[in-house]
């Protein structure tokens, strides 16, 4: 069981990420920010609970879904916005945008834009932590669709052989862009693959903070003790389509609209046409109100700060290819 303080932190981070994302979606719709975010709505609790179970500097290779990964590591909202808006004050000055937010001191190592890269790179990170005796654990977040890349296999096998301190955290939302898992993936549970690497494979409900936290904490203990990697699969819901603006016409039933920025940003309907359950709705309204207090001000302050920053100059495009 997650202690109360931690639970509040997880909920608060997830709520902030959601509210922030909604604001980002608005900024995208007005054209102020380029609309290339993959919305994290529905998956924040799992992401935040997992990171809460790790140390603040445990290295991570994050997934492409949402902003909670960075918020959970206390990266200022302003910084994230500046990356999204290609402004000074972000982490990658227009070169990487929202795909390549980076801050090594916070364990945010960046992302492979081509899916699969994070697995093998994460194995290398874990190898380094092990060899340097840092006591750190590397976590790789990935979607169920990405688990079908060959790199998953190469990394999982070697991580197990070398007992690397690696946590493979699958956010299984049942979709790879427009393709349902049933069409792309031979097993319902990605965790079933763990047996093929002699590592633990655990399925948890991604909306269940205790379950996610517990599984990741156990995996981290195991990894720090030198007992090797774990595969954890959190079943999550992709509430609002693949990208901002995805109307999910590929779902069998027509999407059902909602209200608020989320509705504009995506469809929010299950493949059976039913509205999808939002894990954040389980939070007690009073607690939610309390936790969300001040969020809008923080977000608006970040937006204002972002707006005050200049767009990155074109000279940056020619920098950073090689170490000077």
């Amino acid at each position, binding site marked *: 069981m997650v202690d109360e303080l931690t639970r509040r932190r997880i909920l608060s981070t997830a709520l902030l990420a959601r509210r922030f994302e909604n604001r980002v979606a608005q900024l995208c719709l007005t054209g102020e920010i*380029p609309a*290339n975010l993959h919305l994290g709505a529905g998956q924040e609790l799992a992401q935040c609970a997992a990171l809460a179970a790790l140390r603040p500097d445990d290295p991570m290779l994050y997934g492409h879904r949402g902003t909670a990964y960075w918020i959970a590591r206390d990266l200022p909202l302003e910084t994230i916005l500046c990356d999204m808006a*290609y402004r000074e004050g972000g982490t*990658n000055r*227009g*070169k*990487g*945008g929202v*795909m*390549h937010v980076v801050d090594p001191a916070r364990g945010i190592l960046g992302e*492979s*834009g*081509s*899916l*699969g890269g994070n697995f093998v790179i994460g194995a290398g990170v874990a190898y380094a932590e092990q060899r340097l005796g840092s006591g750190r654990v590397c976590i790789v977040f990935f979607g169920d*669709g*990405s688990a*079908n*890349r*060959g790199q998953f296999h190469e990394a999982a096998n070697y991580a197990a052989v070398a007992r690397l301190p690696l946590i493979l955290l699958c956010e299984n939302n049942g979709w*790879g*862009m*427009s*393709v349902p898992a049933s*069409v*792309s*993936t031979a097993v319902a549970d990605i965790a079933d693959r763990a047996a093929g690497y002699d590592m633990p494979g655990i399925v948890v409900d991604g909306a269940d903070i205790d379950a996610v936290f517990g599984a990741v904490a156990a995996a981290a203990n195991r990894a720090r003790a030198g007992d090797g990697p774990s595969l954890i699969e959190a079943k999550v819901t992709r509430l609002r389509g693949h990208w901002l603006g995805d109307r999910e*016409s*590929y779902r069998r039933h027509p999407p059902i609209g909602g209200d608020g920025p989320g509705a504009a940003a995506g469809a929010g309907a299950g493949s059976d046409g039913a509205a999808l359950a939002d894990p954040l709705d389980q939070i007690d309204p009073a607690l939610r109100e309390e936790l969300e207090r001040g969020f809008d001000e923080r977000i608006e302050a970040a937006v204002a700060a972002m707006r005050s920053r200049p*767009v*990155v100059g*074109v000279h*940056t*495009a*020619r920098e950073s*290819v090689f170490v000077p």
Partner: protein
Amino acid sequence: MTEISHQTPDETRIVKYAHAIREAIVGEMKRDRNVVMFGEDVGPMGGVWGVSRGMGEFIGDQLFDTPISENLVVGMAIGMAMRGLRPIAELQYCDFVFSAGQEVFLNCATWRYAHDGRVDLPLVVRMASGGGGFGPEHSQCTEAYLMHTPGVRVVVPSTPADAKGLVTAAIRSDDPVFVFEHKRLYGTSGPVPEGEHVTAFGRAVVRRAGSRLTIVAWQDMLRRSLAAAEILAAQGIEVEIIDPVTLNPFDLEALLRSVKKTGACLVVEEAPRTLGVGAEIGALLMEHAFGWLDRPLRRLAIPDVPVPTAEHLVDSLVPSVDDIVATAGEMCR
């Protein structure tokens, strides 16, 4: 932006590039049930670029989604091609030739040769190239890598008509053909012949005739070059613009014909300068046109950096209409 002039002036049906590709695929699928297309999100969603949108009738039979498994996507095409099918594999971005690197550069390129022609690989790999806003791993123009690879054909349609004609020809080809579809062209329109339309490989097209300078460009750089040519014409400088249409085979004769006339050549491309296609054109001109060239080759290309994400950064790196006007102007001074 200037539209690329059409090849068939009597043709009046105006169609989008993406649609023209679809017409080619649908036409060939109807003609031959062994033509099958697959890739990530090509089914109900119609592909990230919308090329297979509205092709629902083929889903399940000749059109299907794959897992996110690029090695598999290209590898399957190879296996299917060996056994009598005519597969069309879609990679969402042409950067992903490296995600299936072994299958593309080693297997596709060498299987027929290593097995002395006893196995043909009539396969097509379709891919989206170039553009801005997608980041370093989703924005490249990787045609030079393929052009350095014996055993694969490389096709770069610039007009909707060529898109239809080249994709049709690619599907009918018994060799592995890599089709680069430029992201900035999917939404462009132009005249496209109705019904069957096949564009031959290896025949460059003079997109604009002129006497002062030969510009070689394709796809988005061709559009920019044509726009630049208008501006240059207003300044009294008539440039000739050659669209190679296919890079393998490459129509050297057409290039030489033009350069013999103009005496100079500018290559404009959306790829890193070093060992971009322009390098080969430069070397070929040295070898074959040394006597006729009165000015050195110039290359406009991306300086040797990856493609950034921000569009304004991309714009600062990719040759612009202004860059072309300036360079061509200098060359004709």
